[in-house]
């Protein structure tokens, strides 16, 4: 229906159009000359007051250049239509117009946000809208053709203004103040009409029925519901009629899931009126919603064989999954007036069973003892079995728009899938997008043929060498054995080789390749390997043991995750399993004993991020945690910056915003806090009980319930867009990828999708990470971004060959190391100042083609560990709870009621850090208080994902090496170690120091120089006995060894 206002406006506008066209009077104007006259004034008002006002005060953000939130005020239609927040103007109703609401609002909603409109300006706008918001239609440029604001299902709550009047009953299980498993003796009506349902006590006059039970984690997607079994019944008083008597219009909505029980023929769910054996076959006397268990069909029964039914088999879906069932009925004959909607879809057909044809008009008659009832309010009423989460009754037929809006509301609230809602979330991609290099399937390419077979050790070599040859370059010669053993030992274990290991390798009579192979096998078998490579992974997953931000609360059990990573690497757990366990280990079936513990601990990945415990907007805080989980999932496993799509479609990659929210829906279905409403109560730390083992405290998320988020337009959750069903990235998952139907969160499905050999990214990203950590730079230099903004692979074929080989070898990371390390490419020398190097540098300055082995700085952990190892003080005790307990003990108890919530109190210069002799990976990792010793040398900042560390050279590092007690003490320890060694003379002692620190023997000139230094020190200003002076002198020399570039850099 067209409103009177709109009619006038149309007339007015067409009149104006005629005028502005300058033609003679045309019909509209002829018919309403008075309107036209009035209008001239309004136009004048618009042109003089409103248009300039809109342009000046709103136009900067809502004009031709920018259209914040899709609103544009310089075009008539665009303003009338409004922006993402909705229609801007209700013609003639300033009070209802968003435009006026915004300019008069205070605080966040005020527009313009910075400087409030003057009262006179607001008054002008109000008058303009009240007068019908006249804006003459112009011709040419201004005549508008704007982009459509995306069409979205409205979400309409049962008590929305437009429905409130006809809402007669609204039962919500989530409002019940009953303990889990407790009896529901009364189910209060949330419609505000007082139709509370009770068992026999209370408002009812008579009847029977035992109390159903409240189930907090019901079959309705794990949300609260009232569980009925036969005999349970609730009913309201007959005195307060729902108004559904006589020939009534109605809409009944049931959200629930039912149990198929063949012991009964009929099972009654809801009844209004008199379904009993009233001896009047002429008219249906009740509204009865029941299940017919035989044919498995749902009926709307009118009593005494008057049935409208969804037809045989229709109930199966009611037994199989949670449902939103909506039944509407229009006045008039029973069967043709009824319609059924199951999860948003109209049932194919309504089957009629009226014994006397379709012309019977019902006459619903209220029973004397009760009104609307559920289950078995009378002994003779069959009752039903199942979970009801929500029951709504309206006394009229909802319009399609209203019904759809209501379905959307319920679907979101109960996690029920309504396929229609997701249509808008499906995206199509161009061939170019789909064929983006990193999204194409991995196919193992043929190994190129190269002429010089001598230089081929591993299949990776021909790939490298053919690229070099193409630009006229040669690989560098092989490095000497000393360089090789230092390189590979640091690389695989993060520690220097001992003189004994060096000697054995130098003396090995086998070929370089064979000898290296033996060494590599030994190193990979050492527990030190996992300790080293775990640190690389911990960088990527922002591992830390405190929450950062406001509380910086200690995460007491995070260390278990660290130890899990070390163990997984040491046991060469297939990477696919490693991935699945970290995302969904808790959901993996068939895990028992320690394997179950490990799998649950692995999900600590999802807990490790920074958390804002003091955030007052709890839902926002959860969404921020989801953002962190998505970021780590995207960048660590897939090499994609999915987080970019939180506020808008990804600007560079084919990730629409809806995909972000689809993944976010999966993670939002998982809970990281113990209490939904109180973050600071604590994140999830709980006692994991596994058969055969002692209970273990773990930090791991738990399943929540399936959640379907809506797109938050511009990242603002108060501005919802289309529904985002749980599913994967559409551009990769391909056409036909359906939303997840699982009753779990969907993490397991996501994890399996990521860890599948068919996923084009997972293996590529991992082999590239491993490559990066061996060579300093990945084949894809941006190792956490394989998207368009990342760099292209330097050797695409090699990347694919490695990825395919990796999957073929059972996702074995150790095999991958062997492929890479025992290769000619890895064994190349670091070419210094030679002529050929200069030439190569001109062609390929960044060494992307790998014509040499780059000089690599030890990372912070390797530096610290090497100092300890060389000084002979390194403690190789593996893992354990030391860090967690240390942080926890030192943490501040701020609330005796919450003793486990402890803000960190360990500082970056805590003596613990310099006193500890354990490997650096076992030092506490506290956000915002990283130990100086590691932070100075660019250790990963655990506030974010670090795909590749910085490599800075700054004087504060030198100050540390010159003056920090850690360095001074270890220098002294090294000096003591050398002086107490059996070395025969000073020359031998100097040689030993060199061999320990840099692996090689000193040149004679170096021995001479060091001798002179020592002599000068002994003769110098130090006081004490000769022994003391000697020790001081040697300490001074030892310290210079730790400071040397040769100590810090590896060839």
């Amino acid at each position, binding site marked *: 229906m067209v409103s009177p206002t709109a009619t006038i406006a149309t007339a007015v506008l067409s009149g104006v159009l005629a005028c502005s066209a300058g033609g003679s009077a045309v019909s509209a104007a002829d018919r309403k000359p008075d309107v036209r006259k009035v209008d001239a004034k309004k136009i004048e008002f618009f042109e003089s007051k409103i248009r300039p006002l809109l342009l000046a005060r709103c136009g900067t953000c809502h004009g031709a250049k920018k259209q914040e939130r899709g609103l544009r005020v310089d075009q008539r239609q665009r303003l009338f239509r409004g922006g993402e927040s909705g229609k801007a103007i209700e013609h003639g109703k300033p009070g209802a117009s968003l435009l006026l609401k915004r300019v008069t609002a205070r605080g966040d909603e005020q527009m313009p946000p910075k400087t409030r409109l003057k009262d006179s300006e607001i008054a002008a706008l109000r008058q303009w809208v009240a007068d019908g918001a006249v804006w003459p239609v112009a011709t040419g440029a201004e005549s508008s053709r704007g982009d459509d604001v995306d069409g979205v299902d409205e979400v309409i709550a049962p008590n929305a203004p437009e429905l409130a009047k006809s809402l007669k009953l609204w039962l919500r299980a989530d409002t019940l103040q009953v303990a889990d498993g407790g009896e529901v003796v009364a189910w209060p009506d949330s419609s505000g009409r007082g139709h509370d349902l009770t068992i026999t006590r209370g408002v009812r006059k008579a009847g029977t029925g035992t109390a159903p039970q409240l189930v907090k984690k019901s079959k309705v997607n794990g949300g609260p519901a009232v569980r009925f079994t036969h005999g349970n019944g609730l009913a309201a008083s007959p005195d307060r009629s729902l108004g559904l008597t006589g020939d009534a219009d109605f809409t009944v909505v049931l959200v629930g899931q039912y149990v198929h029980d063949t012991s009964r023929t009929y099972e009654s769910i809801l009844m209004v009126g008199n379904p009993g054996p009233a001896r009047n076959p002429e008219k249906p006397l009740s509204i009865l919603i029941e299940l017919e268990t035989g044919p498995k069909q749902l009926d709307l029964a009118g009593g005494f064989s008057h049935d409208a039914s969804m037809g045989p088999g229709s109930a199966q879906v009611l037994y199989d999954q949670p449902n939103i069932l909506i039944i509407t009925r229009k006045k008039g004959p029973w069967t043709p007036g009824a319609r059924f909607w199951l999860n948003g879809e109209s049932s194919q057909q309504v089957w009629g069973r009226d014994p006397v044809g379709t012309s019977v008009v019902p006459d619903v008659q209220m029973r004397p003892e009760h009104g609307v009832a559920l289950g078995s309010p009378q002994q003779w009423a069959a009752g039903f079995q199942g979970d009801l989460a929500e029951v709504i009754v309206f006394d009229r037929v909802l319009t399609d728009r209203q019904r759809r809006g209501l379905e959307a509301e319920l679907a979101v609230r109960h996690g029920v899938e309504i396929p229609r809602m997701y249509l808008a979330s499906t995206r199509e991609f161009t061939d170019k997008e789909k064929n983006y290099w990193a999204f194409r399937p991995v196919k193992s390419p043929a190994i190129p043929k190269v002429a010089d077979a001598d230089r081929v050790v591993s299949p990776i070599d021909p790939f490298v060498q053919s690229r070099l040859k193409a630009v006229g370059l040669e690989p560098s010669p092989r490095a000497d054995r000393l360089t090789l053993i230092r390189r590979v030992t640091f690389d695989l274990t993060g520690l220097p080789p001992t003189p004994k290991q060096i000697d054995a390798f130098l003396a090995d009579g086998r070929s370089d390749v064979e000898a290296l192979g033996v060494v590599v096998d030994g190193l990979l078998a050492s527990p030190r390997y996992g300790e080293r490579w775990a640190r690389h992974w911990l960088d990527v997953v922002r591992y830390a043991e405190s929450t950062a931000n406001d509380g*910086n609360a200690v995460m007491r059990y995070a260390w278990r995750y660290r130890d899990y990573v070390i163990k997984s690497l040491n046991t060469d757990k297939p990477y696919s399993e490693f991935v699945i366990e970290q995302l969904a280990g808790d959901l993996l079936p068939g895990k028992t004993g320690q394997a179950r513990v490990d799998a649950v601990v692995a999900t600590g990945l999802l807990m490790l991020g920074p958390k804002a415990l003091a955030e007052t907007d709890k839902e926002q805080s959860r969404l921020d945690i989801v953002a962190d989980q998505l970021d780590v999932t995207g960048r660590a496993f897939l090499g994609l910056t999915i987080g970019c799509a939180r506020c808008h479609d990804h600007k560079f990659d084919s990730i629409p915003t809806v995909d972000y929210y689809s993944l976010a829906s999966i993670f939002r279905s998982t809970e990281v806090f113990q209490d939904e409403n109180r973050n600071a109560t604590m994140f999830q730390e709980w006692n994991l009980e596994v058969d055969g083992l002692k209970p273990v405290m773990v930090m791991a998320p738990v399943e929540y319930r399936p959640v379907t988020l809506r797109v938050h337009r511009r990242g603002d959750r108060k501005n919802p867009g289309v529904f985002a069903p749980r599913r994967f990235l559409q551009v990769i998952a391909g056409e036909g990828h359906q939303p997840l139907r699982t009753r779990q969160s969907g993490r397991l499905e996501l994890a399996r999708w990521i860890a599948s050999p068919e996923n084009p990214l997972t293996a590529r990203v991992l082999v590239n990470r491993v490559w990066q950590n061996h060579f300093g*730079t990945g084949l894809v230099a941006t190792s956490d971004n394989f998207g368009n903004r990342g760099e292209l692979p330097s050797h695409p074929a090699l990347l694919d060959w490695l990825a395919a080989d990796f999957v073929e070898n059972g996702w074995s990371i150790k095999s991958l190391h062997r492929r890479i390390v025992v290769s000619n490419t890895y064994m190349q020398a670091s070419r210094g100042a030679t002529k050929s190097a200069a030439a190569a540098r001109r062609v390929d300055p960044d060494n992307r083609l790998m014509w040499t082995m780059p000089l690599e700085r030890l990372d912070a952990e390797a530096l610290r560990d090497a100092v300890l190892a060389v000084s002979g003080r390194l403690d190789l005790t593996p893992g354990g709870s030391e860090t967690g307990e240390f942080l926890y003990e030192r943490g501040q108890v701020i609330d005796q009621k919450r003793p486990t919530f402890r803000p960190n109190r360990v500082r970056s210069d805590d003596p613990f850090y310099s006193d500890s002799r354990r490997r650096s990976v076992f030092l506490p990792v506290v956000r*915002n208080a990283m130990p100086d010793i590691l932070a100075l040398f660019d250790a990963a900042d655990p506030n974010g994902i670090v795909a590749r560390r910085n490599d800075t050279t700054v004087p504060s590092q030198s100050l540390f090496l010159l003056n920090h007690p850690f360095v001074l003490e270890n220098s002294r320890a090294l000096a003591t170690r050398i002086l107490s060694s059996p070395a025969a003379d000073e020359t031998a002692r100097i040689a030993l120091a060199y061999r320990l620190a840099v692996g090689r023997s000193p040149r004679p000139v170096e021995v001479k120089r060091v001798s002179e230094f020592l002599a000068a020190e002994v003769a110098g200003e130090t006081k004490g006995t000769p022994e003391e002076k000697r020790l001081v002198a040697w300490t001074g020399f030892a310290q210079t060894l730790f400071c040397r570039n040769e100590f810090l850099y590896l060839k």
Partner: protein
Amino acid sequence: MPANLFPPLLHRRRALSRIACGFGATAAAAMLGEESAAAGVDPMAPKRPHFVPRAKRVIFLFLHGGISHVDTFDEKPELNKRNGQPVPFKKPDFEFAVTGNLLGSPWKFHSHGQSGLRISELFPRIGSVIDDVCVVNSISGGNEVSHGPACLRLNTGDGVLNRPSLGAWTLYGLGSDNRDLPGFITLTPSIYHGGTQNFGSAFLAASFQGTSIGDGNAEFPRTAAVSNVVPGRPRAVQRRQLDLLATANREYLVETGADARLEARIRAFETAFRMQTAIPEVFDLSQESKETLALYGIGGGPTDEYGRECLMARRLAESGVRFIQVNHSYPRNYWDAHGGLRANHSKNAMKIDQPIAALITDLKRRGLFDDTLVVLGTEFGRTPAAQGSDGRDHHPHAFSMLMAGGGVRGGMKYGETDEFGYYVAKNMVSIPDLHATILHLLGLDHQRLTFRHAGRDFRLTDVEGEVVREILA
């Protein structure tokens, strides 16, 4: 063309960042020719701003906990008049705690200077220099109602995510003028409410992060509390060690071939050696005259500590430190007056009023005021409505800050709140606007100061920020 193998990214800042990040350092240096040779490999080398700067350095006076605007710099007669009455409009959606009715200010406001700006009796000394100060009354901190996110938003632009701090961005953009001192120094920062993230460098190179001197837990140290700056051995011994080291490092360099990192590291040891002297020197307040010490209120009493910090800030500014943050912070100094507003603000104001006025006076007489931007800020204001009988809650929706010196107009007020100080009524200055303006005064265009990280160009102001031109001198 061999260069086409992997198209080099010649955008200067990007190239520098690559150097800072250390990959392909030599190669990049070779590619860049003379410009990079001048810049060296040190990320802290001075860099040219985008345009002529008005300020060369920043002194950011941070008052932690949230200083009340309606009791200090934003006079609200209507609030006093309606003391005890309900707030006549909707309170914000985001509030930290429950508040009651309007609470008039217990302090009187007076006009000061030629400009006649009115500020409260809490700050008579600041009043005496008000003609040099721009009072911004329309700061909006968004919805960050908790200390942590609000501190992070003020200091890094984002309340939740890990982002580089304002000081780090400044160093990234401009480098440092004094290579023997850290370029970004923060005095007694709190280790809470974001802690080191408030002066961190996030994904920028670690060398851009602030060096903290002391923290909010203890009194401002009287010696140079810079890590590792006290020589571990006598200087003469260190000298011999460094000579031995330098010889070895030069030999190694011959072996490896030219490598910018190795060369930089040889220089870094020499710089470190000098820093051991330079830092204690700058921290030695005994070199200051009695008159100066008295000006700052140093020598006991409530003004002693913040006085020493402000004087230190001047000395650091003088020595070429780019960004100096002087914190009045938790737990020892805390403006978070949920209750006991009168006592809290009186006591705290007493501590800082004289030192801040002295800093402005001192900078002026030494000719440093014109190119030093002084900002007095807080993470949020406090509610015009009462919390309890004598308290105010957190209020990010409208509050005040002061700006002075380096290119800012003195003796002016900018922006207005409504009659109660609840919301911004005119000329809102958001935190990104504030950041954009500070960078602008330093000669940096906030839209051009970007860093590529995780596939995206990040800026301090993200997608927001407008320079507040009206306050520029």
